[in-house]
């Protein structure tokens, strides 16, 4: 895997390409008219499961809850054979050690949010400590938030330097950079944030914290995928994409896969380069998979809630 590094020759982010919202909406609508049926649907749904970062990010999280979630990550629905596991568990830094222990050698990654998630309103020092704490506890992936205030004020160098510094603090852990697109207000800004993060060394770019609406709309994700495409063309380095928040139905998840396939191609259709940040998506996908096999929908009570 060729990992992204902080790029030395950075472009002027004020000159990031413009994005036409109407055009993006039209393109996204085309993805949504794709008809995914039968074998293609089953394959797609399994792929979706395998791309999920199963998430719990609540003030009331406890080690017990995290242990239960880690079990679910490895045993999504044991009645159904041939199911993959999810890609990762996503928790707060204080839960990383517990999750790491519970997941053992399952191969499932532990992702930790960091940098004073979700608002990012803290000092650089604290953000670095936050990150190091998570990494030292064994986090494989770090989900940081950018300083939206600084970004909206036009201080792009600050945002760039902040990401580069966290990247350094990550060591071997892969860095996901969250923009909180619901606070950025326009697709032009989403595009600019994507460029800044990728040039600063992001391994993944991620839409949202899940705490703000709107979150991962297809329009936003598409804009970010286009930015990844351009970055790959220019540098030869792949960057991953993680839409998070608001994707709770199988249909929407499949439409996201269609969008990835038709924008970045097959190489991104793996959990190495594409993730869904979601808490309730997994059960809907499981319900659809069981329906594909049996022909019947089962009640939600047949799928475990964690």
């Amino acid at each position, binding site marked *: 895997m060729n990992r992204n590094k902080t790029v030395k020759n950075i472009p002027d982010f004020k000159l990031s390409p*413009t*994005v036409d919202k109407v055009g993006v909406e039209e*393109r996204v609508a085309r993805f949504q008219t794709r*008809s995914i049926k039968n074998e293609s649907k089953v394959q797609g749904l399994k792929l979706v499961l395998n791309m999920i970062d199963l998430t719990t990010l609540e003030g009331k999280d406890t080690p017990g809850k995290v242990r239960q979630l880690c079990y679910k990550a490895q045993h999504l629905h044991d009645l159904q054979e041939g199911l993959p596991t999810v890609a990762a568990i996503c928790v707060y830094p204080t839960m990383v050690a517990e999750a790491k222990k519970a997941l053992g050698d399952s191969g499932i990654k532990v992702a930790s949010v960091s940098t004073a998630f979700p608002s990012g309103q803290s000092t650089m020092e604290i953000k670095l400590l936050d990150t190091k704490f998570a990494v030292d506890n064994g986090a494989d992936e770090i989900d940081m938030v950018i300083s939206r205030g600084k970004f909206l004020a036009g201080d792009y160098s600050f945002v760039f330097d902040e990401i580069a510094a966290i990247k350094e603090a990550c060591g071997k852990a892969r860095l996901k950079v969250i923009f909180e697109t619901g606070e950025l207000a326009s697709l032009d800004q989403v595009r600019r944030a994507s460029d800044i993060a990728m040039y600063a060394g992001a391994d993944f770019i991620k839409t949202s914290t899940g705490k703000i609406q709107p979150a991962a709309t297809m329009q936003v994700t598409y804009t970010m995928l286009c930015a990844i495409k351009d970055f790959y063309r220019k540098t030869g380095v792949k960057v991953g994409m993680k839409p998070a928040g608001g994707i709770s139905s199988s249909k929407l998840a499949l439409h996201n896969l269609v969008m990835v396939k038709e924008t970045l191609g*097959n190489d991104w*259709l793996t959990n190495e380069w594409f993730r869904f940040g979601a808490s309730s998506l997994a059960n809907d996908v499981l319900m659809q998979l069981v329906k594909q096999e049996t022909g019947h929908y089962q009640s939600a009570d047949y799928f475990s809630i964690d």
Partner: protein
Amino acid sequence: MTKKDKHKEKATFDFNGGWDYSPSPESTSHVKLKERYDLYIDGKFVAPNSGKYFQTTNPATEKVLAEVAQADESDVDKAVKAARKAYENVWSKLSAKERGKYIYRIARLMQEKARELAVVETLDAGKTIRESRDVDVPLACNHFFYYAGWADKLEYAFPNRTVSSLGVAGQIIPWNFPLLMAAWKIAPALAAGNTVVLKPAETTPLTAMLLAEIIHESGLPAGVVNILTGYGDTGAAIVNHPDINKIAFTGSTNVGKIIQKAVAGTGKKLTLELGGKSANIVFEDAPIDQAVEGIVNGIFFNQGHVCCAGSRLFVQESVAEEVIQKLKDRLDTLYVGDPLDKNTDIGAINSKEQLETIRKYIKIGKDEGANMYESSCEIPKKGYFVRPILFTDVAQSSRIAQEEIFGPVLTIQTFRTIDEVIQKANNSPYGLAAGVWTDKGSRIFNMTSKLRAGVIWANTYNKFDPTSPFGGYKESGFGREGGLQGLGAYLKIER
């Protein structure tokens, strides 16, 4: 190559194979085509005088769909007499409000049968079900709805003028949007109080005959709309019939010229909507990814069988490499194949004849020394299909940049300054449409006032609406269809 570059991964995208969509064909079980379709004259379905029929085929499978009647001069005469009688005795005497009711009824019946119409359109014309379902049929219905509303408001449409109907309108339509073109023609003619003799194209007569059945079912008085199938000679008989007051033609520039000569001095009112070689212009500040979508939609919509297709792409030199690279990537993601499959982006070429024309131009392009890029997508072995194609390094003097190809073939030229691109865009015998892609509003207005084209789209392409007039400059024809202007084309407007 520097040492550092050696470790750089070559950036390529893999769009073929992998996780893919299973076939998803639209069901045809609700469609029952007859073996044979007769002429619709004077409210009855009648056999042609000659007793001759011809076959219409599905261009995607080359299978025969049905036989349709071949109308000759005597059938045309019968239809015009019926239309005249209906005009004099019924239609012109009916109150405008009642006229509107009939048009509304036709629109509603079309909506009820929208699925059937879409499937038959796809079978007969080779266009994708996605387009016939989402574009052709809904737009056709909307044209009837729109003009139905004007029927009893003609004096408000043209204030301080006296308006009156013309009489009998002869209408000849092309094969690229069979049902939609029929709607464009019939709806304003009826709303203005005229009666109609319409001839659909010989390769795509079926939806016009379904429309005849719908019109029949609507109870429209006999003879108000007559639909005759046939070849060019049937069209010529309509054009030359002495008792027709208005000719409306959509089709090739060559035929348009013949028609214009034929009606000269006869007093027949004429509108021609002919060919095009429209410029799509991308400036360096354009939203590039959306512009690429717009370019694709501009030229590959309906297999490029669109008179206003954005077939000449002009890209500002500073972004040319990027735009061309992105176009190539996008071409590789297009699905070409079974038009009935809901996931197909590009369907079948309308006829063998048109396929040969397109192949001829592809050869001309190669012979002229332009660089060709062909999509890597797979195409079916049977049926009339062609991969989407880009030509780069095209000169303004190349034939492929000057002549209308009417297929999925895009020519790409670069430009440096605004003046240069305006000059080149206007340097064409045609002037139907143009597209401008830029982030700068003031530039859009500058361009729209200087480009000589009937329709100019900014940051989009191929958008149609019944309220918006459509038509061209120069060899693209004259007269407007759609909107108030399209209504005026069917009226005598006096002070």
